[in-house]
């Protein structure tokens, strides 16, 4: 086993990162720095710490150090299952601890950075975590065998106990912890045959489920260090703007307000509790210097993207016969997505206690080491002077891959005596955020005998990767932005994909659940339906004919179609038009097909009645956890399709809270069915793929119902009124 820390981002080859991000399974050979801590821990021999993840104390307590953060995706449970399977520990015996910041020890093997995102966790840790468990188990067995003077191969393990059947002896792991610390970790411990798994592939109760039902689960926003004050803030409503002048006379007069902190780009009111801070904030009179973005509007931003689309892109794929829009017989279309906010239920927050030479932080973050680096920079300290207490995340969705909330909180805390919890109002969370960018796709294809013979796809969007993981960006191509375009599943003849990098002026952009594939799956699947119509073929049959070389894709498509009753008549009420639509995708290492069923009222109102999804995500750790993630992902995608839109006017975001930045509620829910297709392939991601399937499936269903092809999201109901404009 690799005894060295994982290479730093700059040391990792771009090719590895590319392959890691696109097909995480290939990178699983990257070793974790096992063995490192065994040396460091020699002063504490009563704890067996064979690697960075496992601690077994002499009293038998087993603690797993979790490098990945829990934001609802069930990863604490899945990671524990991976280790516990190979270590033969009962799940119930395991305690979890959030890992401290260290890219070397806890860097995600795919990113090389301690980050949880991109549906990478199980793909990244499927093998390393099992190896960690297997290595620890082997050392415990060695320790027992040595004590009993028997052959280690004659010992077995079960439920935290080593047994030697021939002599009837047994010892619990705890009693072997000290001796095991002196054993040499095996270089390549054998892993169990999947046929003998006792945990993996079998639904387990989530380890965090009880605390999340009785109010004891602790999120970043629940941090209460002694003496903590609460602050809330206002940043400039125009991105990049600055403060010109603040009159805080009335704010200071509010009972419970302790302090007003005015910085270059924001003002914060510090109080005894959130209400005092919020009342104080409302009483401030702030004059902004709005800066260069004061005239931004949705229209100006959209026009700039269309201008960018005319630029030649960087070629990503260029194979075989080409096709250009405008050429004779060429079918062309373009598709666009809007800006979106993440709006996790837990608003942005960060608690900071800054003292001379030390900074303590309480937060729920997807990126521990980035928080550490940002806090150090903002406080003028060294990274090792920053202590971080990570918490559960009240939703991440990509927003907590960013550290702007840390930067602001630390800069505010620099003016506050004692700890301060900086809590964003929901309005601040929606209006002064980082956003999922607009994206556009321009597609062209030529058909012969009812099948595509040439295909061209130009992706226009920002590069979040270039800022967030620079080593992975080179040659002008953003591997996330083209994900789902450059590797779409169909046989289409000549195949050309270009990427035009376009950063929307002034708008801070970041990852959002479903990332790049949101754009590409929406456009590719909408365009495939368009081509099926041009070929006068059924959307299902048209796809099937292009998937003969892609059996896993074909299987999920057929599975979803069978469960959805594709081709059978749909009931419609008076005043409603009904239809079904397909999406098929092969991103994040998983294969999904969703079939949506919609009813469109004569007035254009869209009701999604049913979503049927078939999933092949390779070997599954916790089946019910997979179903849960797909269900949730579908709802996230449905919110985007039905309601999701951030618009700008005079440089300002026009939405402010859940009344005008709407998300799906229970009374809008379709019936949802998720069907797992059994698979022995390498595990794929499941956090995001549900989300990306919804927009095209719903748009295609709306076409089936109305004959109107929507090419922009969210759904514009005014286009769908019966006899209305098309």
């Amino acid at each position, binding site marked *: 086993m690799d005894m060295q820390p994982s290479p730093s981002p700059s040391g990792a080859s771009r090719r590895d990162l590319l392959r890691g991000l696109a097909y995480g399974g290939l990178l699983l050979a990257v070793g974790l720095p096992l063995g490192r801590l065994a040396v460091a821990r020699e002063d504490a021999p009563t704890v067996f710490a064979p690697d960075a993840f496992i601690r077994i104390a002499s009293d038998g307590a087993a603690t797993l150090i979790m490098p990945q953060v829990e934001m609802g995706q069930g990863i604490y449970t899945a990671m524990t299952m991976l280790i516990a399977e190979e270590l033969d520990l009962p799940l119930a015996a395991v305690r979890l601890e959030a890992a401290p910041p260290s890219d070397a020890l806890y860097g995600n093997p795919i990113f090389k950075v301690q980050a949880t995102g991109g549906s990478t966790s199980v793909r990244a840790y499927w093998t390393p975590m099992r190896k960690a468990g297997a290595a620890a188990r082997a050392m415990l067995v060695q320790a027992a065998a040595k004590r009993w003077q028997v052959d280690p191969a004659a010992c077995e393990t079960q439920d935290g106990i080593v047994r030697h059947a021939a002599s009837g002896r047994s010892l619990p792991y705890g009693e072997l912890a000290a001796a095991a610390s002196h054993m040499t970790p095996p270089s390549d411990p054998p892993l169990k045959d999947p046929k003998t798994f006792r945990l993996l592939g079998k639904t387990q109760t989530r380890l965090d489920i009880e605390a999340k039902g009785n109010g004891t689960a602790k999120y970043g926003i629940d941090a209460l260090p002694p003496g903590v004050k609460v602050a809330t803030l206002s940043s400039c409503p125009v991105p990049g703007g600055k403060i010109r002048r603040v009159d805080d006379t009335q704010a200071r007069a509010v009972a*419970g307000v302790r302090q007003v902190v005015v910085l270059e780009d924001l003002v914060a009111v510090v109080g005894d509790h959130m209400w005092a801070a919020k009342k104080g904030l409302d009483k401030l009179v702030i004059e902004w210097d709005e800066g260069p973005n004061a005239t931004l509007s949705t229209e100006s931003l959209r026009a700039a993207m269309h201008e960018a689309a005319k630029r030649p892109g960087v070629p990503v794929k260029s194979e075989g016969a080409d096709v250009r829009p405008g050429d004779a017989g060429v079918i062309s279309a373009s598709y666009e997505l809007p800006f979106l906010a993440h709006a996790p239920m837990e608003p942005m927050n960060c608690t900071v206690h800054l003292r001379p030479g030390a900074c303590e932080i309480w937060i729920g973050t997807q990126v521990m080491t980035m928080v550490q680096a940002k806090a150090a920079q903002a406080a003028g300290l060294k990274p090792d002077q920053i202590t971080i207490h990570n918490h559960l995340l009240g939703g991440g969705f990509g927003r907590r891959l960013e550290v702007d909330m840390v930067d602001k909180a630390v800069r505010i805390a620099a003016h506050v005596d004692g700890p301060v919890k900086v809590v964003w109002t929901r309005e601040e969370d929606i209006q002064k955020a980082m956003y999922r960018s607009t994206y556009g796709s321009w597609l062209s294809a030529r058909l012969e005998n009812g099948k595509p013979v040439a295909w061209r796809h130009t992706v226009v969007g920002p590069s979040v990767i270039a800022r967030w993981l620079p080593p992975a960006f080179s040659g002008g191509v953003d591997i996330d932005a083209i994900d789902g375009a450059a590797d779409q599943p169909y046989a289409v003849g000549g195949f050309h994909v270009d990427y035009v990098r376009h950063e929307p002026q002034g708008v801070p952009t970041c990852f959002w659940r479903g990332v790049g594939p949101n754009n590409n799956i929406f456009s590719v699947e909408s365009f495939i339906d368009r081509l099926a119509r041009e070929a006068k073929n059924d959307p299902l049959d048209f796809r099937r004919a292009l998937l003969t070389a892609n059996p896993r894709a074909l299987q999920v498509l057929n599975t979803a179609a069978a469960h959805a009753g594709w081709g059978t008549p749909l009931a419609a009420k008076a005043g409603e038009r009904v239809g079904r639509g397909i999406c098929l995708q092969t991103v994040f290492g998983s294969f999904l097909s969703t079939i949506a069923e919609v009813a469109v009222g004569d007035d254009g109102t869209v009701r999604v009645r049913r979503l049927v999804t078939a999933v092949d995500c390779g070997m599954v750790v916790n089946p019910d956890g997979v179903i849960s993630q797909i269900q949730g992902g579908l709802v996230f995608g449905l919110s985007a399709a039905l309601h999701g839109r951030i618009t700008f006017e005079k440089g300002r975001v026009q939405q402010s809270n859940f009344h005008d930045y709407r998300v799906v509620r229970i009374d809008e829910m379709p019936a949802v069915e998720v069907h797992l297709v059994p698979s022995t392939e390498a595990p794929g991601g499941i956090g995001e793929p549900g989300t990306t399937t919804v927009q095209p499936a719903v748009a295609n269903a709306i076409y089936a119902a109305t004959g109107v092809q929507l090419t922009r999201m969210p759904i514009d109901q005014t286009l769908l009124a019966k006899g209305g404009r098309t």
Partner: protein
Amino acid sequence: MIKISINGTVHDVEVEQDTPLLWVLRDVLGMTGTKFGCGVAQCGACTVHVDGTPVRSCQLAVGDVGDMPVVTIEGIGATPAGAKVQKAWMDLQVAQCGYCQSGQIMAAAALLTQTPAPTDADIDAAMAGNICRCGTYVRIRDGVKRAASQA
């Protein structure tokens, strides 16, 4: 000084009368199970029971609570409906990030107390004020029905 009764215990709190109950619970009493999501009665994360009725605690001034008993997520397990809902939520593994679930459980417990055998329409009406951004609605609906069937 304001006196309020929460989960059967009387607390004296020193805050302005207009302070929303939410912030008294969270920031003054340190009872952080009740969550802040929107502050404007749009999300339901802050739902508590006041005199048995589900209330958005971000909208209720502490001075208006008077002697009406308040029950929060920390105390709902002691009520028959609350215990059933919590059990159903565990059995069906409803929570994902869990942040909205205090409010969901409080709303569901209130629904079952009022309407022991709710229809889908009853569930929609009672639960539509509670947003779950993780999208656990399928299981929330099943959870309410399961809790109802454990009468």
